[in-house]
């Protein structure tokens, strides 16, 4: 057994996993507060990364202007999407809502491919990237940066929902919409906020991935990797999303390790999370931390 490769892949898994955790958190945020399953989560990353890329490369803006502008754009985009497209769907059956987000997903993906091309384009160098050696492992500083940003986002989410007025309003809405409304919370603005925050944070994740791997269509696949993560953690649990994300990230890399060392089937890296997904759905459909649906007749 190759221990060096093992630890390297384990560390990779943890780093990618926290990133999945962040995206899964955005997904759960939307699901929890608006009961919409967002199949277009990966496209948020894609749009965020491409918009930031356009600001930095096409318009030659410095990073400290271009990045906040991207966030402002994503905020407007999220609110607009919720108001124009998703508000008419409130109260529609679940298949309509799912299909709507799938429709959004293919529309945006095709639009981005058309505007920016299908090939990966490198992100302009924002931070110095070098390879440092930590406990005998070679780690790129870009990866460490991605890990730090992910953890900062997670802590930010924690404080937002624990202490800020908007965060508390969102939690109240998720708990019971009617009671929240009668206490003077504007459910409409909470819905719009949920989409805006989710789009913004996804864009940050997109930019981070873009800095490491370059911006390309492949970013959107993270939106699909999110499903195993959220199902494992439970669809409406923020903690579950983080745990699920890290687990799937590690599992993916362990599958890669097992594949390269013993199995030699190839492509296990991309397909293993989906086998896990089906197994979880069979034995524990509401995930580790999710709440079970109880229906009355």
């Amino acid at each position: 057994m190759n221990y060096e490769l093992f630890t390297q892949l384990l560390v990779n898994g943890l780093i990618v996993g926290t990133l999945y955790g962040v995206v899964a958190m955005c997904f759960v945020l939307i699901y929890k507060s608006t009961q919409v399953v967002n199949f277009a989560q990966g496209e948020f990353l894609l749009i965020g990364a491409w918009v930031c890329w356009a600001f930095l490369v096409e318009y030659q803006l410095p990073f400290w202007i271009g990045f906040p502008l991207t966030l402002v754009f994503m905020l407007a985009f999220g609110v607009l999407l919720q108001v124009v497209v998703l508000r008419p769907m409130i109260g529609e059956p679940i298949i309509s809502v799912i299909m709507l987000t799938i429709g959004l997903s293919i529309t945006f993906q095709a639009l981005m491919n058309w505007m920016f091309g299908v090939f990966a384009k490198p992100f302009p160098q924002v931070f110095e990237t070098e390879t440092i050696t930590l406990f005998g492992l070679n780690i790129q500083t870009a990866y460490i940066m991605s890990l730090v940003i992910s953890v900062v986002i997670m802590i930010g989410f924690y404080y937002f929902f624990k202490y800020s007025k908007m965060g508390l309003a969102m939690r109240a809405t998720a708990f019971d919409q009617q009671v929240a409304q009668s206490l003077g919370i504007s459910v409409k603005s909470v819905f719009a906020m949920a989409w805006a925050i989710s789009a913004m944070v996804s864009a940050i994740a997109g930019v981070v991935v873009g800095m490491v791997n370059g911006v390309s269509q492949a970013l959107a696949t993270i939106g699909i990797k999110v499903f195993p993560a959220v199902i494992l953690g439970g669809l409406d649990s923020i903690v579950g999303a983080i745990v699920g994300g890290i687990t799937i990230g590690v599992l993916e890399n362990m599958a890669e390790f097992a594949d390269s060392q013993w199995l030699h089937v190839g492509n296990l890296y991309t397909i293993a999370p989906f086998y896990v997904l089906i197994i979880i759905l069979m034995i524990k459909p509401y995930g580790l931390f999710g709440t079970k649906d109880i229906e009355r007749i």
Partner: protein
Amino acid sequence: MAGHNQMKCGQFRTTYQQDNTIFPTPLARGVAIGSVIFLLFAPLFAGPYFLNLSIQIGYYAIAALGLNILVGFTGQISLGHSAFFGFGAFASAWINNTTGIPVFFAIPLAGFMTLAVGMIVGIPAGRIKGLYLAIATLASQFILEDFFSRAEWFTGGIYGAMANPVSIFGYTFDSDQSFFYIVLFWLVVSYVLGANLMRTRDGRAFVAVRDHYLSAEIMGINLTKYRVMSFGVSSFFAGIGGALFGHYLGFVSAEGFTILLSIQFLAMIIIGGLGSVMGSLMGCIFMVLLPELMEFGSSGLKEIFPALDHGMTYLKEMSIGIAIILFLIFEPDGLAHRWKMTKSYWKLYPFSY
């Protein structure tokens, strides 16, 4: 249903048999039979372009009907329909290539093989529903896609599989004109089967599961049985459609059956109308003609906007998404409902009440 109170003057239904016919009125039956007879003569005067389009509509419509039975009638969401479509294509080619059974008989056999696979994939459906099922079928789409590129004994791996043209008793259907009849035959058989299924006990059980699964279970409907069965029936039609697709193209490659095709199937039934047999066909016609119409419409604009030329593939993809979104927001009941409204409008014209 809405159709009942807008029946034509002079038509009365006095027995349950009369209320449960396949076609609501003798006129509708006449039109259906008439259009089939018309299509029988169509290859004699239709050009190759029209034939190609109608064959495409034919095999996609069979698969879309299967998906509508699953999604529209049983209320189970599936994001993995194109994997079954692809499985049917590979299975038919494989049966024909390895055992030498004529393609004509290999097509229904492939349908039954796909039925078995669909029931295996449908097993999780016994336990989960709604959104969770959608995600499970999404996973099975990826797993089956991976299987296609891996199983070389079955699919030829990355190289794909050759599919012989349809032949029986020494006669080969290798031209578009003759293949049109094969597709037409299966289309009519499938739609008659599909429409009839909804008149049986099983069909009504599907609808009961969709409308309220707990009440259905209390009434004595075995939920697991009907959910898995619905997956089986749906896969059977997908398999038939896929087999026709494979033998029409003559070559089956694993790349063709992606999630995008699954979404296109879903778009067909949503645009046509969930829970409507004829809606599947209407939605399918819409989805096949949409890119053609866009190509046609943009040919004039190309001189003015040269960017349209290389953006056409993306525009077509976008049009699928935009069509889904617009239909869901403005006409969630689909084209079938719109057609019904148009008919009742003219029936009552000029007094719309």
